[in-house]
């Protein structure tokens, strides 16, 4: 008997996937498929686009129209796909490096345009694929192979960055909080306009080892203990929030979607 999700939404012959034991990416990939299943999207009308990185290998496993592009450029390619054929449900999968380092510009512009693309960031706070260099989301003082003395960069809060750029939907979740993740990804896909879910992943192989984060289970436990939902947090006394990170929906508002706006221009100009 086969895993029902795999059977329905993945390219079974490509499994087992290349990710390391305990890599959080597989958890997030599954969640995306469940959301697609839940919404009931036509597989032929779903397009998954990624850049380059461990996370960006996900589309290769997913049984949709899949596009593995160049490092950082997924959203730029996806913009072309979506604008050329707005009928497609376009989902971008991107690592923290892919999305916020080399690809940062495309992120903020896709968010600004409010184009109907859903971006799922597999944020493991490191460049996994290239072997553990610090990324724009590596916390200050943590180590990477290129930050042997501790990182002096301040990390992005990718969710806040997207909001600053004009995103109309932005949420954060973790590889531990799967039921919440399922829901947020589902909401993001249903959202009209640009939506982003930053899913905190784990990279036991590089980030974990380099920063002595213990076992895979220790890393998952850290996620479990460190994140609280914004809505819950609102009601908590300050001392309970200390050292915690917030997750959940940070913004969710309605604004005109890009390709629809374009269609209006066509409607007004087409002879």
């Amino acid at each position, binding site marked *: 008997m086969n895993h029902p999700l795999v059977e329905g939404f993945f390219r079974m012959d490509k499994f087992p996937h*290349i990710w*390391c034991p305990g890599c959080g990416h597989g958890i997030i990939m599954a969640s995306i498929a469940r959301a697609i299943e839940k919404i009931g999207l036509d597989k032929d009308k779903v397009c998954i686009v990624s850049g380059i990185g461990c996370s960006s290998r996900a589309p290769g496993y997913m049984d949709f129209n899949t596009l593995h592009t160049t490092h950082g450029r997924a959203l730029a390619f996806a913009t072309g796909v979506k604008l050329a054929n707005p009928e497609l449900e376009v989902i971008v999968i991107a690592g923290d490096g892919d999305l916020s380092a080399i690809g940062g510009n495309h992120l903020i512009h896709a968010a600004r345009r409010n184009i109907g693309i859903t971006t799922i960031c597999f944020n493991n706070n490191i460049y996994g694929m290239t072997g553990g260099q610090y990324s724009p989301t590596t916390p200050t003082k943590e180590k990477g192979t290129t930050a042997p003395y501790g990182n002096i960069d301040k990390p992005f809060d990718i969710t806040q960055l997207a909001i600053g750029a004009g995103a109309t939907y932005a949420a954060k979740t973790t590889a531990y909080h799967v039921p919440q993740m399922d829901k947020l990804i589902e909401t993001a896909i249903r959202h009209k306009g640009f939506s982003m879910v930053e899913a905190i992943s784990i990279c036991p192989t590089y980030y974990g080892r380099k920063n002595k984060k213990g076992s895979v289970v220790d890393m998952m436990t850290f996620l479990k203990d460190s994140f609280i939902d914004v809505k819950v947090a609102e009601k908590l006394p300050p001392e309970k929030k200390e050292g915690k990170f917030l997750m959940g929906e940070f913004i969710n508002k309605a604004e005109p979607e890009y390709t629809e706006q374009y269609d209006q221009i066509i409607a007004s100009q087409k002879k």
Partner: protein
Amino acid sequence: MSKQLELRLSGSGGQGLITAGIILAEAALKDDKNAIQTQSYGPEARGGASKAEVIISEDSIDFPKVTLPNMTLALTQIASDKYIKDISVDGTVIVDESITLPETLKAKHIYRVPIIKTAINEVGKEIVANIVALGLIVGLTGIVTEGSLEAAIMARIPKGTEDLNRLALQKGYELAKTLQK
């Protein structure tokens, strides 16, 4: 042994075989030989098999890659399946005893040796299986002097693990002796 040893070490990512290759090469340098070490990198390494190759020679080495090794060692089944086939007819194959070899495999010597078990049971840490393997290889080939090998090991390992590694090396030499008789 021929003047030039072309060795391929393979196993899984975490088994330290690249380090083993470097150590062996550095030992060769101490013996005033030439050595080149190469390895396979990259996404294949995720989960899959990793490979380190060493050429040791009295002469200068032009072509740096091993094409047909005269000695191969594999510590995992996946690595063995992928890399063990290529071996010169007068070469030596060494695999961990847990590994099943294809019946078609042809080589001068084929050894299945309890390398990992030795590391776990007799040294006490699976992680030093690579050093056990080094002892075994050098015990069999004499390609580097024991003094150089120990010095090279000591230069590469974390402080505080000297005795552990020395013991592992010893056990490797002992394994070699059991094969040579």
